């Protein structure tokens, strides 16, 4: 039997006002996939962090730009791709310092990245600055 794959897409203006809508989209898709409420909360947070980074950093809060969230659902996992055409960045440049060090340096950058990496099973970037950047994330579905 052919594996079943379902695809969903949300395209919204690049505004933090749309983060609630993005979380709703991810939550509904994850629920359809069969994730439990705790896993759904993790997915919503990871994708929110990815999209907030795009809106604020890749697009510099330019609301004429658009953020695209693609979700691909198969029997074993949910894959989420967040796409933008803004300034890409080198994920390796993000500090992975401890909380205490970040506080004393008055820095809060990199927290979103740390959350994403903890919450998802896979996270990786494809960067083509000004053309297309994509953040690919995957979470496995733990079957009961």
């Amino acid at each position: 039997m052919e594996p079943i794959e379902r695809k969903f897409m949300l395209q919204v203006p690049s505004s933090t006002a749309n983060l609630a809508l993005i979380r709703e989209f991810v939550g509904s898709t994850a629920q359809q996939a069969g994730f439990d409420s705790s896993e759904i909360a993790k997915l919503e947070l990871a994708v929110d962090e990815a999209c907030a980074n795009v809106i604020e950093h890749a697009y510099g809060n330019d609301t004429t730009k658009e953020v695209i969230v693609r979700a691909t659902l198969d029997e074993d996992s949910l894959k989420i791709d967040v796409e933008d055409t803004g300034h890409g960045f080198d994920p390796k440049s993000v500090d992975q310092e401890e909380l205490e060090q970040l506080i004393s340096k008055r820095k809060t950058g990199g927290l979103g990245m740390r959350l994403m990496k903890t919450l998802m099973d896979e996270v990786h970037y494809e960067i083509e600055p000004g053309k297309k950047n994509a953040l690919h994330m995957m979470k496995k579905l733990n079957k009961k």
Partner: protein
Amino acid sequence: MPNLFSVETDSADDFAVIRLEGAVDAHTAPQFEEAVQNVIDAGQNKIIVDCAKMSYISSAGLGVFMGFIEEVRDEGGDIKICGLSDKVKQPFEILGFESLYDFCPDVGSAKKQFDEPVKGEM
């Protein structure tokens, strides 16, 4: 999908209680930040953030707790976090907030916690 968020401040007694309701994300965190700044500007440094009605928090909201903690502690005060449900506690735990901040079940216990030494060494 509207983000129903509100922040209220109650500055009675020796404490300022900031009550968060709804989702604290990159869109709403600036309102939370403004509330904390207003409390500090008014000379208050014993701050309790009541999260009992908070449904969600992302790193933008967590960054607000981080941005003020040193300043408040330098003045002899603290920021206590109370009322966190299991649902919203996870990002605090992932980033290690428990080693630096006091988590209290409710506002009453948070007030008592101010009599104890401040958590973490900054």
